[in-house]
């Protein structure tokens, strides 16, 4: 081809390309028929509601635009979460807009599923209920834990049908914990733990930052105690057989042999009883307790658990010297045969240390405590298998997936004579075997009340336009079960109940409650005083009988499998939300897949490497999973998170990952606690290998100054050079990684000796962010909120393996090369540098430095050279390799104020420019400057621990500017002299 031909072809090609590049805009504008009072097109309206993604019941504010909810944020008035949300709460929207949501009832026929109308379904349900007849447990109800009004309705229903109480099935229930409180204190409840008031926190596996009781609340309380404040921070020690996210946040994590918690706790009780005799322990407890722990011994316990005796002795001394110690028992993911004893010993140790139990509050117990024990659930399943149930109603739970007897249940549902109705919005594992699947309204679409803590009613209201014809669950129950219901529909029934039980008798009270999101008391209730049970000595027998685990596991070939509840999927209900699949696991950084974590020793024994697929073989089932190597797990353990591996649950969940629950034996402890540890019969390589879809480049930072930690007093001792441009680490300011000073992205951050670029003068504001690494727990709520706010595409497993994930904000986790159990979590988003390397390499000037310091990415200017991403040291720029899809109706969640990016352009964090613009609008309306703290980007808004702060660096009084003066302040890779506007505060480590 000669030059002219080339030019001709190129010219033709580019013209054809340009002509083909036209968007297809919407051609019709629909006007409303009647305008609702509170809907202004183009402006959001906020409705308070309740998150029902887990039994904690956080308050949410639903941001509604033109009838669609586009974002969930925490309700600041709500006592549980106080304005923040976890990643599952953020992703609740993807349940409402799930493309696989059932819109009509599905009836199973011989020819497969048949869609019927809601009226037909209700009539069919009524006929089946009449045919089943009353009494003798012929009709049974299995439901997730519901709020107090719905519980009252279901109890009425059970009475109406003369059948047993409804079984509230929660896969992650805390039977051992309840039993301990019942047996020792006579309180059959799950209390509130005041982590915030403790100065020493010792957890024996309770994963309170992930799924345990009320994770958002405990994340906040934990950081109130554990964040550095005036040179002090509380101490948190975690002992568990594998490192969970909670353990990764401990000052010291001790790896212990599985199921050795009770042994350790007994030894600690004995030690404290012997040494700390000045404590006011009631005599009636002291004597039987001393007898129960008589055979315990610290050194022996340390040997059994496999931790260093000196470390345990040190911990025991810490317990004695601590002023306000608090002990937490095990979590759902570490429940072994002695889990009852563990919880009881933890409670007793608390009692011994603090006879008043002043940090355990029974005045507002968790609603989760009303969940049926696994024994009761198993009894129901036995009845089902025996064919005694004529009509089984299952509401929002998935026993086929979450019980190890799932296959048995599925068979019983398929083959049994009885009729099963699944009130589920998805064709999930259980619904697929039911006879009728009846979708009902979700929490964002219905009137309801839920008390995550008993007595603290949080309300739900329809926060969005009615998209579907589906009725509320309460309405179905009222219509089919009560021929002549006293109140008309469930809303009226709810109001009636609230009038009788909660004193909501006036319209004003009701409207106030709906606007606030619930009926919250201003003052916290008085803690309930607790007293010891009478028959304590019999209860203590269980403790004295608790045997240490057989000391064979480590050297034998068999491994113990732990199934950990997942921060992403909870018990599995989150597995069909694409955000939760796409945001990687906080510890393994693997998205979409569910690998089995093994210790390198175990891997050597089996002869596998990371990525090899192994076959896990237990007494009940086989499962294949890829291996993930981690040193933060006991060598005798294999760890899998639960939640994935659905046989049916929509496109994002089906055939993704594996379900380890099937490998469990299904045994329970004496109290009914389901055991999540199970011995594996064998584990063997299959010879296959897959690539793990992990998003981390490496596990360590190779000695670079990215995520930096310090120890108490270190920075303060070195001191700073005066002013804001202080040198890090007390050295004279220089040009090396160690000596480069903190250079603010402001004119004063420029120095003619270092800089060749001219100073950026900012007009009015210079936006910046503070990230306190000491507060970050790595939970990933910020990353998920960013997906929700900024219309970020979901790329899926394959593309993540290719490294093409689109997250604007990711959390890197860096392991300490000297001690891999020490992890620093490092939220990383666009740093909005003042000397941005991306800006200087773009041939078309698409990354543009704004007058308020933001690094703008102009999508329509970008031609996709990707030079900017190459030149960005943080790798926060994301390129759209494809047009990402939002299967209908997921696109209804998209934020209309944020451009949906198309193929071929670069994108990145904008500091939520749309929110900055809204604040500018308010400020201009009122002719003032933007207040400090008025702008909260989505990540800042949702952070449960307040690790992120956003504000104006130019304003010397602003919170961010004040925090820059913190001796811990540094810039990630600031030594490149790019003057990032995100200032990190070092994580504070303490040696225990």
């Amino acid at each position, binding site marked *: 081809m000669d030059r002219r031909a080339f030019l001709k072809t190129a010219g033709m090609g580019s013209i054809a390309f340009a002509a083909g590049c036209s968007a297809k805009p919407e*051609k019709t*504008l629909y006007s409303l028929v009647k305008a609702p009072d509170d809907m202004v097109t183009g402006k959001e309206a906020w409705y308070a509601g309740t998150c029902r993604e887990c039994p904690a019941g956080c308050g949410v504010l639903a941001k509604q635009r033109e009838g669609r909810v586009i974002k969930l944020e925490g309700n600041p008035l709500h006592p549980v979460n106080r304005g923040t949300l976890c990643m599952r709460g953020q992703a609740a929207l993807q349940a409402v807009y799930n493309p696989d949501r059932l819109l009509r009832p599905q009836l199973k026929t011989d020819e497969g599923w048949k869609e019927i109308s809601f009226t037909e379904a209700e009539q069919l349900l009524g006929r089946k209920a009449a045919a089943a007849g009353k009494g003798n447990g012929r009709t049974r109800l299995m439901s997730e834990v519901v709020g107090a009004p719905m519980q009252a309705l279901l109890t009425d229903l059970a009475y109406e049908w003369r059948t047993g109480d409804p079984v509230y099935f929660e896969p992650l229930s805390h039977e051992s914990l309840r039993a301990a409180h019942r047996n020792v204190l006579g309180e059959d409840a799950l209390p509130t733990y005041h982590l915030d008031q403790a100065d020493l926190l010792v957890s024996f596996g309770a994963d309170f930052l992930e799924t345990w009781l009320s994770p958002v609340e405990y994340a906040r309380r934990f950081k109130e105690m554990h964040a550095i404040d005036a040179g002090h921070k509380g101490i948190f020690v975690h002992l568990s057989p594998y490192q969970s996210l909670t353990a990764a946040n401990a000052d010291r994590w001790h790896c212990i042999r599985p199921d050795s918690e009770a042994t350790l706790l007994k030894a600690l009780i004995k030690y404290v009883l012997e040494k700390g005799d000045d404590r006011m322990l009631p005599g009636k407890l002291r004597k039987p307790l001393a007898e129960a722990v008589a055979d315990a011994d610290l050194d022996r316990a340390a040997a059994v658990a496999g931790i260093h005796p000196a470390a345990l002795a040190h911990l025991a001394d810490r317990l004695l010297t601590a002023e306000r110690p608090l002990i937490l028992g095990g979590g759902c993911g570490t429940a072994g045969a002695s889990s009852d004893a563990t919880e009881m010993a933890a409670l007793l140790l608390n009692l011994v240390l603090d006879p008043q139990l002043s940090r355990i509050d029974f005045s507002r117990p968790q609603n989760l405590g009303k969940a049926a024990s696994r024994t009761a659930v198993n009894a129901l399943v036995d009845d089902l298998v025996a064919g005694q149930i004529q009509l089984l109603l299952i509401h929002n739970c998935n026993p086929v997936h979450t019980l190890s007897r799932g296959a048995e249940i599925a068979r019983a549902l398929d083959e049994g004579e009885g009729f099963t109705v699944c009130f589920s919005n998805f064709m999930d594992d259980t619904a697929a075997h039911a006879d009728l699947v009846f979708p009902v309204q979700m929490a964002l679409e219905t009137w309801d009340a839920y008390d995550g803590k008993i007595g603290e009613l949080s309300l739900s209201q329809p926060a969005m336009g009615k998209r579907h014809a589906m009725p509320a669950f309460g309405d179905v129950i009222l219509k089919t079960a009560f021929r002549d219901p006293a109140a008309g529909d469930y809303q009226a029934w709810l109001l009636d109940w609230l009038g009788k039980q909660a004193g909501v008798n006036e319209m004003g009270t009701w409207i106030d409650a709906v606007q606030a999101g619930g009926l919250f008391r201003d003052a916290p209730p008085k803690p309930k005083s607790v007293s010891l049970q009478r028959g304590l000595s019999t209860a203590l027998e269980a403790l004295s009988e608790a045997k240490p685990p057989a000391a064979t596991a480590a050297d034998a070939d068999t491994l113990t499998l732990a199934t950990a509840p997942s921060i992403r999927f909870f018990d599995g209900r989150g597995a069909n939300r694409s955000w939760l699949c796409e945001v990687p696991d906080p510890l393994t950084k693997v998205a979409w897949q569910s690998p089995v974590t093994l210790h390198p020793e175990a891997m050597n024994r089996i002869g596998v490497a990371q990525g090899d697929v192994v076959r896990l073989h237990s007494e009940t089932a086989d499962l294949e999973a890829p291996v993930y190597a981690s040193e933060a797990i006991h060598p005798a353990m294999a760890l899998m998170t639960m939640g994935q591996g659905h046989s049916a649950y929509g496109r994002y969940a089906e055939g993704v990952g594996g379900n380890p629950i099937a490998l469990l034996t299904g045994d329970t402890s004496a109290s009914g606690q389901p055991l999540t540890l199970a011995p594996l019969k064998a584990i063997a390589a299959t010879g296959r290998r897959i690539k793990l879809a992990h998003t981390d480049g490496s596990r360590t930072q190779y000695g670079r100054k990215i995520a930096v930690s310090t120890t108490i007093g270190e920075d303060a001792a070195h001191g700073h050079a005066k002013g804001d441009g202080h040198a890090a680490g007390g050295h004279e300011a220089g040009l090396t990684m160690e000596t480069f000073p903190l250079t603010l992205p402001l004119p004063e951050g420029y120095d003619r000796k270092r800089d060749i670029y001219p100073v950026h003068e900012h007009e009015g504001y210079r936006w910046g962010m503070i990230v306190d690494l000491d507060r970050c727990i790595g939970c990933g709520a910020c990353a998920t909120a960013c997906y929700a706010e900024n219309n970020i595409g979901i790329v899926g497993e394959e593309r993540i393996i290719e490294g093409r994930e689109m997250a604007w904000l990711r959390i890197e986790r860096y392991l300490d090369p000297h001690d891999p159990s020490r992890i620093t979590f490092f939220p990383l988003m666009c740093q909005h540098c003042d000397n941005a390397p991306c800006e200087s390499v773009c041939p078309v000037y698409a990354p543009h430095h704004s007058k308020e310091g933001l690094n703008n990415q102009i999508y329509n200017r970008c031609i996709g050279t990707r030079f900017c991403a190459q030149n960005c040291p943080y790798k926060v720029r994301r390129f759209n390799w494809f047009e990402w899809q939002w299967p209908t109706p997921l696109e209804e969640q998209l934020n209309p*104020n944020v451009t949906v990016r198309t193929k071929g352009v670069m994108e990145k964090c904008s500091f939520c420019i749309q929110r900055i613009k809204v604040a500018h609008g308010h400020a201009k309306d009122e002719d003032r400057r933007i207040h400090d703290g008025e702008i909260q980007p989505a990540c800042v808004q949702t952070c449960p621990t307040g690790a992120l702060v956003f504000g104006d660096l130019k304003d010397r009084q602003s919170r961010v500017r004040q925090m820059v003066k913190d001796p811990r302040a540094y810039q990630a890779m600031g030594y490149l002299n790019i003057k990032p506007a995100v200032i990190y505060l070092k994580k504070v480590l303490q040696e225990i």
Partner: protein
Amino acid sequence: MELLITSLSLFTLLAIIILIATRGRPMRFFTAFGDTLMNLWTNRGPLFWTALTVLLVLGFLFYFYTPPQSWVGKAQPIAFSHHLHSGVKNIQCEYCHPYVGRSIHPGLPPVEKCLHCHNYIIANHWEIRKEHNYYDTNTPTPWRKVNYLAEHVVFNHQRHIKKQVQCVECHGQIEKMDRIKGKHFYMGFCIKCHRERNANLDCWLACHS
């Protein structure tokens, strides 16, 4: 205008024919008329195609530019006239587009708002009956969009109204249009005014996000 173009085109066509027929010497049309006819006949092929092309082009132009629809906007589901409502009756823009001063979108009037008046004014007119039909069947009216803005731009009406920018400055003399022609707004249009008024020229802070 149409007449002028047509007559000029036809005159040019006639001139071409004469020039060809007289071999470039037009006076021979009068002096040697027989020769001219002979030449015409010899060149009948090319002449035919030339005449056909010119007439087709003219027909095309007439077809697309002279009908009344080409001077007004798209036909809407209801024959609503902005000229009548805004011009003759002098109803303020904000009456039907009430959010213009407090939201990014001006808002379209809901069907019920039309009926606030039209329940009393020409209530039985066939176009108003359509309106009733939308209302009774609870159907949103599918108005055809006439103004287009690229999807990567978020235009905020509120800010412009607060800055005393009049509707006509961007949308033109709406009160004189029966059916609005509308337009595609391009960046140059925005930038010109932003420059003149010393308004925000920042990419994200002003328009994009």
